[in-house]
């Protein structure tokens, strides 16, 4: 691995940060095994004994609700011979984990409960009071507005320090509910990207690509939308989600990105989710009732399109969608796609978010099909000897820095990528 200062320059990065196995291994150790990683939402575990399995970097973990109602995150590994204790993605384990190999049992906080024929351990180091007999727990677990995170490092910033300003992702999602909370929809789409994880993170706030990459979908949706209008019908709101992708470059350039420390960022842009219909009126009224008119308007009028929690979360809070990256290797990345219901709103309001989930985020997406194609070809291009550098020169020097926040001024500025690599370098040092 070359020294970091030779890999990352202020306006360009060396291709090997996307392709090199040694760099990937270091990312796992220096980033994923230290930062706060999203594990799931509290509502995924309604009952004590419910669990889901989750990957943190290279570590297979279990998020479980204990008999005391508390959520914990444990390594999915029996301390006896190393066999994973949960073989499913989710389930209910009663009050105990049991190993399928030799029936070692564990309390839901990981403490050993029973070992068959325990006298076999008399006089050995593996007595039940030895912590080596119990499941290992993640060093730290914390949650923010129902979203549960774990860190495998005992030291480091708190969850709130890690999230910083990007916590707006979860505030914006929950504040749009008159009850201030969301429930997870227990459906997870999983799509494998044949590219380095950075392609996804850069793409999410890249406002120059939509009208190129998604032109086919934008144009086609716009045509059907227009033909409906011409025949006097009101096209559903979700057609507009798709046709917007074909907006002119200038329109995308007029939005702004806000780049926070640690690589987090926001793509601003008001999504226009307030059409003039009875369902929306009823919803807005319920928001007024819950928060008062002024506060409710502040919540509903936030100019947010996407929030990124670097290096692995993309949250589209106005539509309650969340994508999590689980990197598999330098050129393979698993993305989990989730969405949430605003608590206390009518089904009609939920349906808006649902259609976005179906059309943009399902495995039959009409949008990401072309993104994935770009990233696959991007990965192959960077693996070639056709050049050494990846350019992030667009609007370099044209950003505004206020304290530790960088405003792009132009929507299409590559300030986003420059900010992400600034954070990356700090982690990798």
């Amino acid at each position, binding site marked *: 691995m070359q020294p970091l200062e030779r890999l990352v320059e202020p306006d360009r990065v060396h291709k090997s940060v996307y392709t090199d196995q040694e760099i990937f291994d270091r990312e796992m150790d220096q980033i994923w095994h230290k930062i706060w990683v999203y594990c799931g939402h509290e509502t995924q575990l309604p009952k004590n*004994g419910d669990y889901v399995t989750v990957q943190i970097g290279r570590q297979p973990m279990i998020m479980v609700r204990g008999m005391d109602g508390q959520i914990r995150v444990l390594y999915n590994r029996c301390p006896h011979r190393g066999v994973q204790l949960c073989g*499913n993605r*989710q*389930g*209910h*384990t*009663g*009050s*105990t*984990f*049991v190993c*399928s190999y030799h*029936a070692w*049992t564990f309390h839901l906080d990981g403490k*050993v*409960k*029973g*070992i*068959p*024929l*325990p006298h076999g351990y008399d006089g050995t180091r593996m007595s*039940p009071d030895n912590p080596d007999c119990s499941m290992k727990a993640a060093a730290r677990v914390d949650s923010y507005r129902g979203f549960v995170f774990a860190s495998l490092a005992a030291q480091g910033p708190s969850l709130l320090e890690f999230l910083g300003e990007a916590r707006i992702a979860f505030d914006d999602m929950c504040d749009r509910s008159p009850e201030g909370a969301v429930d997870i*929809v227990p*459906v997870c*789409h*999983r*799509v*494998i990207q*044949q590219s380095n994880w950075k392609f996804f993170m850069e793409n999410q706030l890249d406002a120059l690509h939509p009208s190129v*990459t998604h032109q*086919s*979908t934008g*144009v*086609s*949706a716009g*045509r*059907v939308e227009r033909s*409906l209008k011409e025949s006097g019908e009101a096209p559903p709101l979700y*057609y507009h989600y*798709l046709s917007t992708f074909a907006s002119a470059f200038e329109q995308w350039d007029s939005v702004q990105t806000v780049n926070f420390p640690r690589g987090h960022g926001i793509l601003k842009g008001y999504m226009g989710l307030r059409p003039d219909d009875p369902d929306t009126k009823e919803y807005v009224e319920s928001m007024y009732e819950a928060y008062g008119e002024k506060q409710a308007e502040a919540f509903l009028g936030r100019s947010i399109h996407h929030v990124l929690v670097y290096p692995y979360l993309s949250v589209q809070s106005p539509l309650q969608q969340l994508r999590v990256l689980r990197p598999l290797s330098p050129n393979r990345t*698993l993305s989990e796609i989730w*969405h949430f219901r605003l608590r206390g709103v009518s*089904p009609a309001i*939920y*349906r808006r978010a*649902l259609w976005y*989930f*179906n*059309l943009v985020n*399902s*495995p*039959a*997406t*009409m949008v*990401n*099909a*072309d993104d*994935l*194609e*770009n990233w696959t070809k991007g990965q192959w291009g960077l693996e070639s000897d056709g050049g050494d550098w990846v350019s992030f020169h667009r609007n370099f020097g044209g950003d505004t820095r206020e304290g530790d926040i960088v405003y792009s001024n132009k929507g299409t500025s590559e300030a986003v990528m420059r900010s992400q690599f600034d954070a990356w370098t700090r982690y990798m040092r």
Partner: protein
Amino acid sequence: MTISKLQDRLLEEVVIFENREARKTGAQSLAPDHSPSRGARSKPLPARAAGVDGEAASLQRRVEQFLYYQSELLDQKQWAAYIELFTADGVYWMPVTPEQTEWLDSPSIFAEDRRLMEIRMGRVQHPNAWSQAPEWGTSHIVSNVVIESADELSVVIRSRFQMMELRRDQIRHFAGTYRHTLLRAGEDFKITLQRVDLLNGQAPFDYVLQVWV
């Protein structure tokens, strides 16, 4: 060791620290809820064919030919003709789980009426649909066709499919169940609802689905 001593040893119970008096120990002591129960256990048996002789046999042949034609249209990428097989309010639906019963209030992989199907068709036919550049194709086999019910107006059929897809250098396999609700149109049919339960719908997708399966 004598035989009886060995037998005693083999019958020896596992002991739990918390309660050494307990009789049922080890894995036997666990509540039966430590694995996810999948609801499938109490599912009703699949419907048998509504009839096989006489008129039923001729209907069977006609619906089979209809399914073969539909899958051939997919494999030949005749999207417009494919969409034409649906009634004006027909829906192509691929739920996320077999338990799902509606698409308006829960997520789906596909839930498309004819207009959304037209958007999808327009997308893949656009010259700048970049993901369409690599050569790709599919081959469907449709089989196990059962007429679940039939009356003067409509026919409900269940079948199974296997699809192999080649895209660039990569092969993917998809398989599952079709459930067609067909409206009779003279000797022909129109689809009012096609439900597609993909066996590997919950598995990770290595790339995505660009058109209907």
